């Protein structure tokens, strides 16, 4: 079993549990001198559910604008982070339930730190589908924050 924690993946959206996961990851990364990757997944299914489209070509255009606002959000997190923590940001498009563990496996991440539930959650006390899927499929340990 790999115990050395050198890379930490923090999947974030604009939710409060994500903010807590980010804060927690900063403390852990500082203590362990680990690198942090912030991962934001733009989910086209959510974009098309949030908006009414007649022209589906518009979905692709909106993905670009969601990516832009995700990028600004990630920058605001990085700006607030302790300066001695090395942080990189990644924005990808897809289904968060699949993309988080795929990214973690592909990049050989040592630890995932994530919120219990995301933006659209009805209650933060119920485990979200993204955290459930990540625990189930990721090869590395997963730390869940409320």
């Amino acid at each position, binding site marked *: 079993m790999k115990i050395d924690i050198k890379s930490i993946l923090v999947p974030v959206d604009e939710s409060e549990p994500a903010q807590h996961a980010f804060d927690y990851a900063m403390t852990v990364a500082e203590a362990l001198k680990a690198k942090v990757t912030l991962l934001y997944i733009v989910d086209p299914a959510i974009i098309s559910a949030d908006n009414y489209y007649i022209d589906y070509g518009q979905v692709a255009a909106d993905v670009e604008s969601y990516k832009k606002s995700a990028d600004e959000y990630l920058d605001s997190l990085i700006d607030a982070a302790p300066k001695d923590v090395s942080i990189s940001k990644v924005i990808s498009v897809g289904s968060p339930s699949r993309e988080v563990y795929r990214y973690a496996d592909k990049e050989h991440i040592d630890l995932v730190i994530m919120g*219990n539930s995301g933006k659209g959650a009805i209650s933060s006390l119920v485990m979200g589908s993204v955290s459930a899927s990540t625990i189930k499929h990721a090869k590395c340990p*997963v*730390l869940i924050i409320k």
Partner: protein
Amino acid sequence: MTMDTTISSILVPIDGSEPSVRALTYAAALASRIGASLIGIYVIDPDKVSEQQPFNINFGTFDPNLEPSKKAASDYLDELKENLPVKVPFTKEIAVGYPEKTIVRFAEEKKVSLIVMGNSGKGAASSFITGSVSYYTIHHAKCPVLIVK
């Protein structure tokens, strides 16, 4: 809203399964690097103990104090402590009750900073399916929970 991110104590539920021992090894390594202490908790489920004595028709011979089970659990935790790969402060705790509820209640009472546990426990069909105890703990514990595969 800001949260307290200090990790001073780590609770590790141990049931004798391989994932729980891996979780302890992981927690010990983490604790030594961040200066936290460990609490290893072994929860004896009275239902499981009586299942292991199926021909106990005379319930008068069933020991309600579960002393043999407690002694075995205590010895087991001592042995795990001896074999930890790193030296970290380790406290053992033996409790009796439903494991998931006992773990969550203990974590709250002792205000532990983090729970580190295996993905599945003893008797699990597959270690790739989140066990009921870990699932319940993630749902109900107020503190962060780290699941080790």
